[in-house]
Structures are given as C-alpha cells and as structure tokens.
C-alpha cells in the first residue's frame, strides 16, 4: 500500500518498494541501486548471492507494470563500481533494459557513477548532472543549494525504532523542510541511521506498507546506573 504525500504542492506517492511515483508526470523515481555491488564482494572473497540483482530487477518490473510510468528517473548510484566487460550482471542488466526499450530512463549521476556517462549512454539511458523540473530538482545528493525543491538519495536513510526490547530498523523516506531523500532501492545496499530534526517528517517502509512516524527528539542520553 502506497501513501500519498504532498510536497511543494505536488501529490507524490511513497511506495513500499522503496520508490516514489509522481502521477502528474507519470514518472517513477528511485535511488541508489548499486548494481554490481555483490560482484565486488565476491571478487574480494565474500560470498554474496548474485540473486540480489534479480530481486531488484523484478521489483522494478513489478512497479513498471503496476504504475505504467512514461519515464523512470534514477537518482544516482546506478552502479557500485564501473563495470568490467566480463561481469555477468552487466549482460543481465542489458538484457533487462532491452525488454523495456521504449521506457525513457534518465540517470542523475551519483558519486559511484563517476566516468559512467558513455556506458549509461550505451545502455540506452540518458545521463544528467541534475534534472530541473518545476517545482523539483532531481539530484543525487540533495544537500546544499538547488534550482528547485531537491529530491534525491545518497544517504540510504534508515530509522531505528524501539519495540519493547527489540530494535527495528526500517528504510525511510526522509522529508525535510528543504529536501526529500529516498531510501536506497537496491536490496544489498545497507542503510545509514539518521538523526532527524523535530521539523522532519519520516515515512517508514514496513513490509508492504508505508507508515508515517513522527521524529524523535534528538537523543537525550539515558542515565544508566
């Protein structure tokens, strides 16, 4: 179940698949795929299953068939490192791209996408430094000044919640007064626990739902005895 949220007077849908849909422009947005990260780990002797790519792609397929977007915007960190010609995931990703050849895909370049312009072009996608589209500005790192309300990623925001003795860690959409930050889309990306300000709004991905949570007051140290 998605959740409708108004940002800069635009209706946006926060999706539990960790993506965002902008109905007025038929645009699907997601951030931080980190393709090929599992391969980097395997190269270094850490066995991460290659199935993570399949999981990400099928989630994306599901979103495309559900919302039928005219366009997909990837807000940076499409890849984890620059691919090598023999990497199997490259072939699989290209194959996937081929099946959705008519879908326009814009890629805002992230810090992991350095030197990727040509390859992104070869993959039939359009590289950008940023995309300005009233009232928004799509960027990778939304901090700082932008010509429009910035929507980005980069942070991989997660929130720690306390449920009795258990700590739940959930990816969140982090809506600040000056930016909106998407959770990382890739399943093997990890998260960064954020310290929200009291004015922030947080939307947690909880299973098949998106749930709004109110921010915590900045951590009062607990006195222990």
């Amino acid at each position, binding site marked *: 179940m998605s959740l409708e949220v108004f940002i800069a007077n635009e209706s946006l849908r926060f999706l539990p698949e960790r993506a965002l849909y902008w109905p007025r422009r038929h645009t699907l947005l997601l951030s931080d795929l980190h393709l090929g990260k599992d391969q980097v780990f395997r190269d270094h002797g850490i066995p991460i299953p290659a199935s993570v790519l399949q999981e990400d792609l099928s989630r994306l397929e599901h979103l495309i068939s559900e919302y039928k977007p005219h366009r997909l915007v990837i807000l940076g960190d499409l890849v984890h490192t620059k691919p090598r010609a023999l990497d199997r995931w490259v072939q699989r990703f290209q194959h996937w791209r081929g099946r959705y050849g008519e879908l326009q895909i814009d890629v805002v370049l992230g810090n992991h996408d350095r030197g990727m312009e040509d390859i992104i072009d070869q993959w039939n996608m359009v590289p950008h430094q940023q995309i300005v589209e009233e009232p928004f500005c799509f960027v990778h790192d939304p901090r700082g000044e932008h010509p429009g309300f910035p929507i980005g990623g980069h942070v991989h925001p997660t929130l720690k919640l306390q449920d*009795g003795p*258990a700590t*739940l860690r959930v990816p969140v959409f982090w809506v600040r007064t000056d930016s909106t930050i998407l959770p990382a889309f890739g399943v093997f990306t990890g998260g960064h626990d954020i310290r929200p300000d009291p004015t922030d709004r947080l939307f947690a991905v909880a299973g098949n739902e998106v749930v709004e949570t*109110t921010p915590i007051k900045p951590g009062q140290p607990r006195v*222990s005895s």
Partner: protein
Amino acid sequence: MTSSFLERWFESRGWTPFDFQREAWEAYLAGESGIVHAPTGTGKTLALWGGPLLESVDDPPGPGAYLWITPLRALAADTTRNLNAPIEADWSVETRTGDTSASIRARHRRKPPPALVTTPESLALMVSYADADRRLSRLKAVFIDEWHELVGNKRGVLLQLCLARLRALNPRLRIWGSSATLGNLDEAMQALLGPTRAGRLIRGLVPKRIEIESLRPASIERFPWAGHLGIKLLPQVLERLSNAQTTLLFTNTRNQAELWFQAIQSCAAGWAERVELHHGSIDRALRQSTETRLAAGELRCVVATSSLDLGIDFSPVDQVIQVGSPKGIARLMQRAGRSGHQPGAVSRVLCVPTNALELIEVAAARRAVRDGSIEPRQVPLQCLDVLAQFLVTRALGGGFRKAELLPEIRDTYSYRTLSEAQLDWAVAFVEHGGDTLQTYPAYHKIVCENGVCRGASKRIGTLHRMSIGTITSDSAIAVRWVRGGMLGLVEESFIARLKPGDRFQFAGRNLELVRVRDMAAQVRLARGTRPNTVPRWLGGRLPLSTELADAVLEILEDARTASDLGPELATVRELLELQCERSELPGPGRLIAETATSREGSHLFIYPFAGRLVHEGLAALVAYRFGRLRPASFTLSANDYGFELASPKPFEVTESLLRRALDTTSLMEDMLAAMNASEMARRKFRDIARIAGLVFQGYPGQAKTARQIQASSGLIYDVLCRFDAGNPLLAQARQEVLEGELEFRRMREALEQIESMALVLTHTERLTPLAFPLWADRLRHSLSSEDWAARVRRAARALERAS
C-alpha cells in the same frame, strides 16, 4: 636425571622444585603430553618450561623448536622474560604477537628463534604461510598457557585445529597445557591433545586454602533487597582498604568498576593517585602501566573486572575484594588466588554483597569451595565458521588435499564427529560459495585443481590474513583526546546516544564529548560538574553457575532446620523468615511459585534458581504457552533466582496449568517461537560472519578497497536468509543463540528437574523478599507475536507519545 642445572637455578633463588614440577619435567622428557592444573601463580610456568630446559642441555634447540601460546598478547612480554630467566645456555625466547613490528617478524622468518611466545591467532597466521609445513614440522613441543581461558571459546577451537595440523606434521610433538582447576579437566585434555590420545594430568599445589569472608551491613533494614550498587558499604570497604597494602577490587561489570573507582578515589584522602582502574575497554597502554605499577607495589588499590583475572603474578597484592555476586565458584577461586602468592599461603577474598540475597551466595560459595564443586567449561562443538576460516588458512599455507583433510580435522575434540558432508560443504563454501555453483558466480577463496586446494589469489590471501583469528568484539569506537592519545574503546551504541557537549565517565575520568570523527570519539576533560552517564557495556553479565545455584538451594534448605546459620545467614535471617511467612523457602526438591496482585495487575513469580539466561528463556516460554491458551500480553522480568510474568489483566494460575507451561514437550519449537529467535540469530550472526570471512573489518586509514567492501553483518544475514536460506552458517547462528544466549541445554535440564520437584504455589498479599528484586528490576521486556508492520506502527505511536 640431569636436573642439576635447573635445581641449581632454583637453589640460587632460595627455592626448591615442587614434586609436581619434577613430575612434569620427567613426563616431558619421557615424551609425554599433558596438563598441569593449579591456581595461577603457583609455579605452573616452571612446571611446563623445566622439561625443555633440561632437554636443551644435551640437545640445544634449533630454529623454531618450541612454541609457547598465551591467551593474552599483553602477557607475552612478561612471559618471555620469565621463560628466559633460567636459561643459561646460548639461546633465548622471543615474542611474536600482533604488536610485533614488521622488521622483527621479517627477522623471525629469516632466522626463526629457538622458542617463540605467541598467541593462538599468530599461530594461525604461521599456518597460513606457504612454507608453513617445513617450518612447523621442526617443532619439538608446544605449550599452551592458561588453557582454561581458551578451551571454552572459539579461539580455543581455532587453536585445536592448529594443534591438529602440528600433530599431523609431527606425530611425536609434545603438547603441554597449564590450566586452572576445572570441573571437566578430562574434556579439556582431549581438546588439547586430540580425542584419541591419553595425556598426563598433573595436579599442582591445590588446594591452596581459600578463605571467603563477607562484609555485612550493621542492620538489615537499611540494606537494599533488590540489586543496587552496594556503594552503601563504601565506608566499610574504605576501612578495609586502609588496613591493607595493596587491594584488588573486582566488580562484575565495567560499569560498576567505573562507579566504584570514582567513589573510592574521591574518598581516598592522600592516596587518590595510588588508585587505578583496569577493565577491558581501557586502552592497552594504560592498562599495562597500571599492571606495572601494581607489580612494583606502587598502588594501594586497583578496581578491575575480569580483565585482571589472568596474567602475571601481582605479588604485592595482599587483599582481594569481590563486589557483587561471585556468579561462579571457579571464578571466585581464581580471583581469591590473586592474593597470598607465596606457595601454600592462604588466599583470602572479601565479598561485598550489593543486596541482601547475595549474602546467601557468599555462604553458598564457601560451601561449594569446601566441597570442590567447580564449574566445567563447555567446549564449543562443530563451529562451521571457524572451520571455514581454517580451511582458507590451510589452503594458503601450502595447500591441502581434500582426501587427507577429514582425519586431520577429526583429530580435534570439537570436530571429532564431523561428517564428510559437513566438511564437503565447508570446502565448497570457500571454493565457490556453497552447494550450488550458480548462486555465487566468480567467487573463490580457494581453488582446487587435481585434488589440491590452494588460495585463490594473492589479494584473497592478504585480506584473509588481515582478518584471521576469531576474537570478536562488538563494534567499538575509540575514545581519544582531542589532541591525540587513546583512552580506550567503548561500544558504538553508547556514543551514538550522546551529543557533543554531553559528559560521561570513562577510564576513571570525567569526559566531555567534543565530536565523533573517523571512528573515534574525541573527548576532553569535563570541568566541574558530575558526569551524567556511565557507559554500560553489553555482555559481561554472567549468569549464576549451576554449581553455585545448587549450593544456594542447599544452604536455604539447611537454614530451615539448622541452628548455627553462619554469619551471612544470620544477617539475612529476618529476610528468610519473612519469605517463609509470606510464602516458602526454595530448596533442592521444591519449586516455589507465587502469585500477587498490585495496581499494575497480576503477577506470577517462579524461582527455579537456574541462572538469568535460562530464566529469561523460561519467562518467554511460559508467557508464550499461557498466551496460547488465552491471548494475553505479559511483561517479563528475570534474574539469577527466578522470573516474573506480569499482566494488566488478571490471569488464572493453577498448579496443573503451571506444570503444563513448564513441560519439556516440544520445548525446542516453543522456545524458538517464544524468543523471537530469528532476531537474536541475526545479532549472533555478527560474530559468525566475521569469523567465516563474510564481513571484512579492515583497518582505520586503510585503502579504498576496504571501504568498498564494508557491509554490516545484519545486511548479509538478511541477504543470505532470502537468497541462500539453506546456508549452514545460518543454522549455526540459530544453534549458538540456543546454546549461548539461552543456555538451552541447561534449560532442558532445569525443566527435567522441575518435573520431579514439589511445586508450592502460594498467593501472597505482599511481595516476598524473593519477588521484590524481580518486581523492582524494571528491565522488562514484552512478548510480541505481531507482524512487522504492526510492530512498526506501534513503535511509531510510542514515539508520538514521547515527543
């Protein structure tokens, strides 16, 4: 026997060798292996080392002849000095640990010293070098110091594997261990020598007489029932401190050590600078300087945790104080042995209870020491993570043939029943990731060709050697002065709760957090005001041992009839009478349960005396089984004596209902369901992932490659659960949760005992002395069976109320 030179050396110091030392020397010279067990500081080192010294007279050691393994690298330097002292000939002992400089290591590799003092991890590293076989086959003997510190953990398992390798290279290798007295020395022997060899068990100077005394409050009314700091007894402790030369004051947690240190220092008029603090999170350099000053007799008091349980002799120590429950008999004996170091002298320990009930534990410990009932150390079995790591080590160290591997691995106690299928999986895991080739394309840690398995690449070798070893710690963050200089390590979760400007107490100092940068918390001394928090470290909260708990029950049983109660029970007599009046005293054949009602709702208290971990599990189990009959929500609370279930709604408890809730039928299934074992396993996986090489820790300031392959073990656990659910490492995590976190074996034994016990169920109008600590200890947790989304929603609502 040519013992003359060694006897002369003893003589020159005014000593005479003990019989057990001579026995060990002769056994060694006869080619035997074995264990010498005695308390620390009673001549175990010379018992072990005399053999090779005598041997060297006629047969001077060549390069790499002897290895001396010490569990603590901080001890290596002192040990080396002690081993060198009696050597008259032209050879010497050197040190090699993780701290040894690269140039000295290089020299060791060019020209191995005749004898090397090292750690289990450094030995594993030696096994991983390409020419390991040639170098290690020259070994004549290996000595393992303080084997009891290793036998119960995964470092010991790694050492077992390395020793099996050494035995395979040289079947006549002699292996000797020194150990404190354990309840399962036979098992410890098999773990040291392999399951098929017989060894010589040599009993040292035991028992040194141990006197256990307690500090008792003048009046019981002022004495807290529930666990509290016990700082109330500070004036009496100070008095004892001023009557002794040098005191070691042990606490059970680092948190308590910080608090006691602060309290003592602020009251120590004139000798505040002669009080020091010693615990595992304090930087090694600071700890070492404390140890040196302690050994030199410069200190009046050191407040310590188990960090000072082993190690060099601190001869100036003439008083040992234990604050809080001793928890176990072996531990109390070890700590008591820190004083009175002249062989044969009496060891004294003064126990300072932090609540009334702990006084009973002191009396129980005294009885258990008298009866010699000492805890065993369970040897971990079949750890696939350690095995996976060792296989890569072996592959790098000259390679191995699959066919030859099984007998070598089975020559360890921990893997003596390893199946061929398990070994095949472990090899496949490091060769290509697991059972199926498709899951992990282009992944290899080892490569097998023509039946020989070797390391896959130089890079893999480098990364593996950097993360070798099984010592695991929670992710720790360095505490540093702003201007540089290290104070120690503290858990990341603690620092994460602080903001810059917050004050906290650490390493005995009042500190102010300035900023967190590069995995370090930068601090400066806080001015004036008191700290507002003291870090509380995870772990370290040992449960009461079975042996001590049983002794407590026996003491309580005696208290019902005996007239002479002894000083501790006399002090708590009123409390015991109150317990009898309101309910009943627990005893060896009697399980006590109490129900009570309060403003909060209904309470059920049960006292199986099986240790905190078992009680946490039992509380969850009983709540789960009650909830199955009639949906209810409970808050749970547990301590070493028993547990409590509380519910805002009244719930009915009858004897038959209770019997069914404490039944052993389908215990495993119910436990896994009740404890939310999957979340616990996810946490436990952290250690396993590190040992099996699934997370690479890297080092601060290391190249970008290390940063590129950083991922949390939790993320890897989730990914494996989803995409490789059959991975045996996941099963190992669940198993370790059951055994390590829940003491499942002990729980089953406790429940089996309960089946034959009388059950006394009483409704009490007011809380009993046993119930009160449980009620007061608000470390409750709730049992939840809801789905993820519902829990997130509830947690979110709780946040709304809080903010």
